[in-house]
């Protein structure tokens, strides 16, 4: 087991290097320039833009820039934002709590819907409940979040005037009003993201449970006279959840990656909106840091999923 993890970690190093090289090259070759605003402003002398390009090393050859970035990153220096002129980790750290809270709760909501609904629908396939659940699930993951987001805003904010649609990470109110305001502004974005995710997961859980429920050992368990509840929770669910665990584990990095579209619609100051505004401003160090952290998380979560497999299903062994 230990050797397995070690081997996987060793493989991760070249893949991360490869990923970072590709990311860096693509970003460097992409059109645009962080100092474009300086050029279109007649009041800023051209030499200021030239001096800044030089100061931030933008005129160096690509490989030199990559090497500088890599050595700094290895020493724990994530870089320096061209646009905000502060360290990238400060910028990212400011956005992490909101992202964790929002995306985390939407994933939790999705799980809380998907597992019970999926299992219940699978135990009664093609019943009325199953039909309705399937229809709703299809609607859920077919509608894009930018559509449902705007739909909710039109209904709850503009028509009914119940909920705010501008998300404020720091609310000046204190005490219970602080929690109430937070709750109110989170309802819509969490619903949009959670429902979208729940739709897909419900379908997965349903088919996974259906696969397992027909197996002989389930029939055996039933014939032993175990109650339906015990059969489902103890015997069926544990095996059915193996593919679901992979799915959820692979979804974990998204919690840190944020949700670009939804964050933009509700003005949620998460990682997603940071990366999109940094991309638009050509703030390469920020984009680089976020995408690199993200790819590290993907690799780590993959490993985590593989290890969880062994725990859930002792038949799987590692060599």
């Amino acid at each position: 087991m230990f050797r397995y993890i070690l081997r996987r970690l060793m493989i991760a190093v070249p893949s991360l290097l490869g990923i970072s090289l590709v990311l860096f090259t693509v970003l460097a070759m992409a059109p645009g320039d962080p100092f474009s605003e300086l050029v279109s402003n007649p009041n800023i002398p051209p030499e200021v833009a030239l001096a800044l390009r030089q100061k931030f090393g933008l005129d160096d050859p690509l490989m030199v820039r990559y090497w500088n970035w890599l050595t700094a990153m290895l020493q724990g220096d994530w870089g320096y934002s061209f646009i905000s002129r502060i360290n990238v980790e400060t910028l990212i750290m400011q956005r992490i709590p909101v992202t964790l809270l929002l995306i985390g709760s939407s994933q939790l909501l999705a799980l809380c819907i998907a597992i019970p609904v999926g299992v219940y629908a699978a135990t009664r396939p093609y019943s009325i409940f199953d039909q309705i659940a399937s229809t709703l699930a299809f609607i859920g993951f077919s509608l894009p979040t930018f559509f449902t987001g705007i739909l909710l805003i039109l209904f709850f904010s503009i028509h009914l005037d119940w909920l705010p649609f501008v998300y404020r990470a720091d609310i000046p109110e204190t005490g219970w009003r602080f929690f109430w305001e937070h709750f109110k502004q989170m309802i819509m974005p969490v619903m949009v993201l959670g429902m979208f995710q729940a739709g897909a997961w419900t379908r997965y859980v349903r088919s996974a449970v259906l696969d397992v429920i027909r197996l002989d050992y389930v029939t055996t368990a039933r014939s032993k006279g175990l109650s339906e509840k015990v059969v489902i929770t103890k015997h069926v669910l544990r095996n059915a959840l193996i593919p679901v665990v992979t799915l959820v584990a692979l979804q974990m990095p998204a919690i840190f990656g944020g949700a670009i579209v939804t964050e933009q619609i509700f003005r949620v100051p998460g990682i997603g909106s940071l990366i999109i505004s940094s991309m638009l401003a050509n703030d390469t160090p920020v984009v680089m840091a976020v995408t690199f952290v993200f790819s590290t998380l993907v690799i780590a979560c993959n490993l985590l999923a593989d290890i969880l497999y062994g725990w859930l299903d002792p038949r799987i062994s590692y060599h």
Partner: protein
Amino acid sequence: MNDIEISSLLDKVRGNDMTRQQFIRRMVGVGLSVPMAAQMLLTSGLAQAQTSSSYKPTKRGGGGALKLLWWQGATLLQPHFASGTKDQEGSRIFYEPLAAWDNDGNMVPILAAEVPTSSNGGVSRDGKIITWKLKKNVLWHDGKPFTADDVVFTAAYAADPATSAYTKGSYSDVKVSKVDSHTVRVEYQKASPFWADPLVSAAGMIIPKHIFESFKGATSRDAPANLRPVGTGPYKFTDFKPGDMLRGVINNDYHEPNRPYFDSIEMKGGGDAVSAARAVLQTGEYDYAWNLQVEDELLLRLEQGGKGRTSITPGGNIEFIQLNMADPWTEIEGERAHASSKHPILSDKAVREAISLVVDRAGVQKFIYGRTGIATSNFLNNPKRFVSPNTKFEFNPDKAAQILEAAGWRRGSDGIREKGGRKLKLVFQTSINGPRQKTQQIIKQAAQKAGIDMELKSVPASVFFSSDPANPDTYTKFFADIQMFTTTMPQPDPEVFMNQYQSSQFATKANKWLGRNSTRYNNPEYDKVYLAAQSEMDPVKRAAMFIRMNDMPINDIAIIPLVYRPRTAGIVNNLVAPLSGWDNDLWLLKDWYKTT
């Protein structure tokens, strides 16, 4: 009344033989507007009336929270590194300049005790020395007094090449020195009719010496105060998350009585312009939304929500078309659109005239921009005294066809004209932006009628407006025949704005295409008038010079002005917010209040 008569009147005012009021009345009598007359007095260095403020509240604070929505959030709070207006606006909550520009282009003292004029000794006779008297009761947010040292330091900070301040251009040619603790002298190398650039408005925000002293030059980027401003403004800094949220709280030691009105302020960033308009006009969730680049049709619909109104403030921004005078398709010394080349088709004035006739400006205003883009025949549209009465525009594709026919451009079998084996085909580029693509279409269709074939090209805005010397699609390179974009006029004086037709400003390989003359307009006459205007101290003669400069590239049809674009903002119904087209939206934040 000619310019000599006006000059003699100005002399009378100068010699106290005539009061300002009398002068203004005379000017109004001959058909000038009051702000225009006041402007003449200002630029000739004569005292101006204080802009009367409509500020009503009689005590400080008590107004609750002011909620501003900036769909592009501020990313840093050091005014001298503020590249775009979003950062300037964020800084402007906390920092103040010596003086600011009101909507008529008048100067309003903020940290200065009064506006320098020749009658109060502020402007020297030769126009080379300006003396600013500072307010004495001003405190920085940390309690230290504001003095002349801070002003001198700010100028030195911005002028230092190692700082790489974006405001460097305003300070590199002036010498700022201290006279006494509350008097500052600004010396220019030559007579400067427009002396009000350094220390004024967005570029003139004063920063505290005691905070930034150890962070001048190369260490400027390490200053913690770049993100935690200590200023003199009406609100004190509390909290900032770049690109997201900026918060401030009332400054109880503010240097003007009864101000500010609000107890706290927040500026929320992010999202898009349409939903920002919605949050103010339709739901009233926010009090003010900046820069609503939204189609007018939609704004009108949102206004029916009844919670807020759209404010339209004229400034000097203009959407216009440039015709390439150089040849973008042939390389000379390894450079396309070389300064010495002539465009193979557009050098024929008949073709340029025809293109000007197929641009339906009235239609573009009516169907695309509405209140947010006014059709114009001038490049210089504001302030009023610089507006040329000599130009006009016409939409007439038939006439365009006749002109081309007369010039020997004959229709081919495919309907496209040709002359000497060369087809009348042109590449028309602009940035990707809804209204611009619609405008391109309208022009292309009309051009087709006249037998001109236009190939439309749209470049992503991040590329089109970039300074990347390696990219061929930037607007400064202009490797196409025709292009369209908006250029901004940041100050009420057109001197900097009009340098873009000087032949010395050619965008070339040598200056990495950072020169501002991208249309490659070359007219020795223009260069001469521009040079003269730079040191002309007589405001009337100077205005006449800028009108001539406006007319030259337009009559030569190197450019075709399209619509001038006022600034749009959303304001919730009971908020009183004095805005100016010549300064940041928050230029007079101290006077914002709500009626009950």
